[in-house]
């Protein structure tokens, strides 16, 4: 099998996280449309948001958004500047480290918060 190098791993992750975020976007807009019908509908949807499953999903979503955003930023830099293209491996590792650190911090706050 051809070796999966840094750039290829990031590309695959970018696609996977992208699809995951679009899936959430559909759910989010859908439920937002329901919530806008009034206080009762709002509360009903909020109750489903409070389930453990949904909250775990939201924490994972944070991870997906962090990676997708950071990697997207790196790609823009790489495609627009020779400086970033020359250092693509370093910058890729930087996106991994930043994504993990921010995920742990952000995820902890999200999980602890009252929803």
């Amino acid at each position, binding site marked *: 099998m051809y070796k999966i190098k840094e750039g290829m791993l990031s590309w695959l992750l970018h*696609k996977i996280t992208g699809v995951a975020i679009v899936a959430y*976007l559909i759910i989010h807009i859908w439920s*937002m449309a329901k919530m*806008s019908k009034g206080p009762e509908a709002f509360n009903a949807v909020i109750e489903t948001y409070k389930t453990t499953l949904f909250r775990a999903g939201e924490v994972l979503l944070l991870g997906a958004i962090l990676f997708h*955003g950071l990697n997207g930023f790196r790609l823009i830099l790489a495609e627009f500047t020779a400086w970033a293209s020359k250092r693509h491996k370093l910058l890729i590792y930087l996106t991994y480290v930043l994504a993990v650190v921010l995920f742990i911090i952000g995820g902890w706050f999200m999980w602890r918060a009252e929803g």
Partner: protein
Amino acid sequence: MSSRGSQAWLFQRVTAVLIFLLLGTHVFLYHYLMGPANWGYDILGFGAADLAKIKADPNLMKYYSLAKVFANPMWKVFDVTLITVGTYHGFYGIKAIIDDWVTHNGWRAIGNWVTYLIGFIIWVIGVVAVISFTPKLY
């Protein structure tokens, strides 16, 4: 000026930057200030009547702060912009994946149109919900 991809490429990057700015504001406002931070009361200037209602049902806090936010049409414009930019970027991304991974011409065309259709429906649902939202304030 017949372009077969260059504008789409540029657009995907421009929308990415826009999403970064808009989503940052969106998350900070809706999911932090009005959520865990509970600063909505002060920022939105709730009166004693609101506070009494909210005490009875904490979830209402979010609803009322949302309602107050949407009383200002500027935030409706903001949300419609975010939904538009977000659905474009997201569904164009799905189309780009289909372009790559679906190698059969016919299936690819079908996949593209289904993606456009779902994207459009989601966009309409979102925009209609935001525009038609008439906050029932106390």
